[in-house]
């Protein structure tokens, strides 16, 4: 095959690596002091990346945040305590009662294994750090690693100066901070590091065509698949990149080697992961990569033939081959889909391509706030200055088009689209934004700084350049303007620092299980109701008590209370969730039957009407009604709305609403209290009106616990009575057949 290669190489005038010339130039200026300087700058950036994420610990405490991190923490604790084999064969009976969940086979274990290795290493040298502490500080640590790999990536794509800027940008980009503050122990925390590593090494592999780099890339990809379901993005972006490369006439043997071997090895590797397995060759999400793989082989073959045949014969042959391959491919896919070998795309994937899909078909996906489309303000809030440096960076990439910069262009363009569909994908855009932003900033700084500091040298250089390639220059711009522009840019970057620090300390540090409110004098008031209730459950209920709550709180209840839940944030069984939704939305007696069937001992609701906590169950209730309605025809959304079609709990609200179990559990005895002396009784602080039904009687459940600010209310499901209570005296003397006891 050596002849094949050389033939191909000589035949095809491969696109020249324009960066090679520049690289030599750069390496020359890299003397010892600069090397040291760069090392320390990177070290400082690393420290900043870690430090800025510790605001959450300073403002609150070293605690696991939010929802999913509690599950991750719980599984990590299991892994550390019981070992990897126990972990993989773990059937969790504490969740999805009575179904249970095969945890080992249904999670991405990368995060847990990373923490375990870290924990074991620390214990090996007798640093007896608890698992919780390792979990809390893992995300900041990996954010530090991400800065390093981003530096390297940007250096490979552009130059070292851009690399430093990229590292600096990604260290404090709010979008990434939001998912990686200390305590935010989530897959994304390690996955972004893995994602950037895969891209960086793959680009390096394409640049060099070296198998070693391909293999490195496959290893990082393997880690990525272990860590996060977002690897689907990579396995679709890389084929897209290959297509763009081929279409723009940048096909090369390096690309061929890099992609083909990457695809083959990566697919094999990711099939080793329990949760992925044969999905890697069977599901629609992976098909684009397979298609491009085969197409690339055909393309390579045709390129080989081109050299041996006359152009007419070649055109004919290619037409036939293309038609043949096309029909075979189409046929294979059709047969695959028809026989069910190839699974269709999942709901989430469809949502990405068609943002209105979930709203119509799958209410559970649409009900999650992080699956909502992104607002413009979010772009500015999460990217700040980068939001408008992206186009500039893309412009510079276009101007100096190489294989690597083309990758950046494809990456940033596709993520800009995806981030617009789902707000959580802002996170994937962040590294792309940082790299393009750094290219823009570094190019501007380069040319303007040089021109400002060495005006003469620059002028002669420009003249020379003008003579050489007739490129446009900045000659007509005066030095004063240049200075102004420079100061402006630096000032903008400084505001970026200010904004990011503020966002890290104020907006993204809250663990969301501890609520902080401002008192009248500006002092901080802590509402610790969540942990109050969870600790109560943990210490005052039986170990095998079953708790019914909306699925949002499932992970927290299993994590903090160590009790069995019906549904949790791993929304794998829509019917089960719909059952809980129906129980919450039905009348008390109907719900009681459902709860008895499910062995429920306690029902838990989140209620913010007393404390003014707005993300409570009442505000989520319409989703429960909708999801509960998918179970059967008992629940009808229209019954829950007022006559004008409004969603309200006030007088005039739908009768089904005012008699639902959710309403009763939230507002039980709320009508007897006032939130302030001026307000009427039963005045809801979140909804800002007086509730419609204040006279709530409970028959089948009783209040078991309510937290200090009423945020969590727990009800005990009563045992069934032994016999029916004696009928009240006003019953007719001649009993109907229904009440005559059977003889």
């Amino acid at each position, binding site marked *: 095959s050596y002849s094949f290669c050389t033939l191909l190489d000589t035949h095809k005038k491969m696109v020249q690596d324009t960066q090679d010339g520049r690289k030599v130039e750069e390496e020359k200026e890299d003397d010892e002091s600069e090397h040291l300087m760069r090392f320390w700058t990177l070290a400082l950036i690393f420290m900043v990346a870690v430090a800025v994420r510790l605001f959450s610990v300073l403002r609150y405490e070293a*605690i696991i945040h939010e929802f999913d991190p509690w599950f991750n923490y719980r599984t990590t604790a299991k892994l550390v305590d019981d070992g990897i084999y126990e972990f993989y064969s773990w059937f969790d009976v504490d969740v999805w009662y009575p179904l249970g969940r095969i945890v080992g086979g249904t999670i991405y274990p990368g995060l847990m294994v990373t923490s375990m290795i870290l924990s074991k290493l620390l214990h090996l040298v*007798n640093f007896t750090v608890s698992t919780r502490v390792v979990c809390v500080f893992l995300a900041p640590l990996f954010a530090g690693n991400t800065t390093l790999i981003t530096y390297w990536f940007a250096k490979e794509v552009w130059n070292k100066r851009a690399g430093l800027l990229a590292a600096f940008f990604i260290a404090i980009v709010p979008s990434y901070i939001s998912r990686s503050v200390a305590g935010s122990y989530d897959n994304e925390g390690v996955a972004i590091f893995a994602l950037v590593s895969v891209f960086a090494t793959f680009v390096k592999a394409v640049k060099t065509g070296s198998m070693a780099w391909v293999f490195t890339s496959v290893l990082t990809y393997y880690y990525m698949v272990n860590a996060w379901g977002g690897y689907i993005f990579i396995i679709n972006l890389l084929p897209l990149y290959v297509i763009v490369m081929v279409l723009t006439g940048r096909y090369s043997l390096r690309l061929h080697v890099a992609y083909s071997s990457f695809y083959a090895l990566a697919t094999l590797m990711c099939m080793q992961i329990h949760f992925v397995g044969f999905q890697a060759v069977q599901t629609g999400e992976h098909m684009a990569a397979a298609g491009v793989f085969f197409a690339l082989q055909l393309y390579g073959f045709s390129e080989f033939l081109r050299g041996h045949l006359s152009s007419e014969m070649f055109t004919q042959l290619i037409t036939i081959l293309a038609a043949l391959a096309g029909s075979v491919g189409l046929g294979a896919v059709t047969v695959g889909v028809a026989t069910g070998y190839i699974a269709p795309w999942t709901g989430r994937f469809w949502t990405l391509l068609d943002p209105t899909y979930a709203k119509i078909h799958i209410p559970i996906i649409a009900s999650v706030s992080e699956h909502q489309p992104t607002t413009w303000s979010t772009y500015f809030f999460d990217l700040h200055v980068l939001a408008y440096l992206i186009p500039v960076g893309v412009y510079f990439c276009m101007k100096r088009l190489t294989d690597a910069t083309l990758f950046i262009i494809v990456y940033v363009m596709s993520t800009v689209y995806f981030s617009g569909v789902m707000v959580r994908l802002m996170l994937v855009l962040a590294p792309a934004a940082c790299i393009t932003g750094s290219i823009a900033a570094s190019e501007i700084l380069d040319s303007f700084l040089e021109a400002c500091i060495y005006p003469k040298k620059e002028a002669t250089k420009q003249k020379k350049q003008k003579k050489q390639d007739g490129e446009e220059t900045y000659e007509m711009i005066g030095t004063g303007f240049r200075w102004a522009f420079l100061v402006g840019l630096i000032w903008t970057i400084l505001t970026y620092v200010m904004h990011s620090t503020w966002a890290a300390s104020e907006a993204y540090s809250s663990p969301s299980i501890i609520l902080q409110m401002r008192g009248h004098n500006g002092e901080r008031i*802590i509402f*610790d109701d969540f942990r109050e209730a969870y*600790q*109560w459950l943990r210490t005052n209920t039986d170990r095998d008590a079953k708790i019914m709550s909306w699925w949002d709180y499932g992970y927290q209840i299993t994590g903090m209370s160590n009790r069995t839940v019906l549904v949790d944030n791993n929304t794998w069984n829509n019917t089960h969730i719909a059952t809980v939704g129906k129980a919450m939305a039905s009348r008390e007696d109907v719900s009681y039957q459902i709860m008895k069937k499910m062995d429920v001992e306690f029902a838990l609701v989140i209620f913010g009407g007393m404390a003014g906590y707005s993300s409570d169950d009442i505000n989520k209730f319409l989703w429960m009604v909708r999801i509960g309605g998918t179970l059967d025809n008992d629940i009808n959304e229209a019954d829950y709305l007022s006559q004008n079609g409004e969603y309200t709990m006030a007088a005039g609200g739908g009768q089904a609403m005012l008699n639902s179990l959710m309403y009763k559990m939230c507002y039980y005895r709320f009508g007897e209290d006032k939130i302030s002396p001026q307000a009427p009784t039963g005045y809801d602080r979140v909804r800002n009106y007086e509730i419609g039904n204040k006279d709530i009687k409970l028959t089948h459940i009783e*209040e078991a*616990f309510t*937290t200090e600010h*009423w945020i969590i209310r727990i009800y005990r499901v009563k045992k069934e009575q032994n016999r029916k209570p004696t009928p009240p005296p006003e019953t007719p003397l001649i009993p109907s057949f229904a009440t005559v006891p059977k003889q």
Partner: protein
Amino acid sequence: MRSLGLVVCCLATAASGWLNSNVERKLDLSNAIVRSTTTVTAFNNEEATDEYLFVVPESNVTRIAKLSVKVDKQEIPITETSRKGGNVYYTAKLKTKIANKASVTLKLRRSMVNSLRPFPPVVKQGESQFVDYNDNVYFLSPYATGKQTTTAKLASGTVESYSKVPPPVIQRGDTIVFGEYKEVEPMKQGPLRVHFMNNKPFMKAVTLRRVIEVSMWGNLAVEEWYAIENHGAKLKGTFSRLDYKRPGHSAPSSFTSLHAHLPQAATDIYFRDDIGNISTSTVGHADRSSKTREVIFTQRFPLFGGWKTRFYFGYNLPLEHALTHNGAENKLTVPFASPVKDLWVDDMVVEVILPEGVPVPEVKVGGKVITDFDVEYRSTYLDYSGRTVIVLKDSTLASPERSEELQVTFKFGTKDLLWEPIYLMVAFMTLFSSIIFFSRVLG
């Protein structure tokens, strides 16, 4: 307390030459722990002796948190001598022999847990808790008693019923006086029963683990793990937050706070549980006279009867407050029991973590040498062979009653202190020299 050895001396009858000329018994029933103080004026009828016997019914022995006898404000040693007829006989060894026809005044103090039975055993949220107390109406003694009175101090004046025989029994507010009874023969018994309202918190630590870690670099870290339960009448039915907050409707027998007296020099006090920080503790002002500082540990939720919670707290103390040394011989002196007020502890484990390389030390509790403890080795930061940990288990304790000190004497010289810096130096040296090696030779 345990394994006192068999100092059998069967002189019970021989010592019956005493006569209790006057007995004044004070029963303090105002708390969850019953404390009684009995002042006995004993008259020696026969030859000079230094032994005085007193008796506790066997069924009460396991409930005794503390038993002490003082003569002239000086504690004297007591030993269990024999068990017969369902009673346990203790011998108090007097400092001096009491001559014939001479008198001595003894002060017996006894603290009992688990002696107030909630009755009814369940109450609703707003209801008060009533308890039932049963005892011997007479002072149980192997000697005849000239005259005696028993004064019971109740938690409240609300008394459902009390035993009225033998007369006179007089109730005055929250006090009931039984007696005076004259000419009571030895070992006489009669029922004493009081059923009254007692809304004092019935705090019980089901388990307590105290960890005391000595760092010879100048710090003593104390951490205490509690599993607490309200041992009073159990809550029946619902808990309503609305009623709980309303004045006058709240739950009288529930409690939310534990008061602890920590050393005045304690710093970095923390209060947590399995799921993180509990942000509701208050550090009070220092009490200069007792060199303590009151810290109020307010729990996440109120504890009603039968409710449980778990938490731990800890603090640091400069080592000079607890450690004295004489050459390489170090003596650590810390309070043995829990610093929490009015808390009765069922099961206590005390762990003292000594520095690495310390040989098995000498342990004393309340001046008595203890040999019955486990030794473990635990490796943490900068350890190679593991730190010496002594583990003391004790299941017969009511912590506030025991003011004994735990004394650990161990050998640790100044040169032993150097190991940790040496480990660090070696680690950093290895790191730097390997960097130098790789960057110079390979790079």
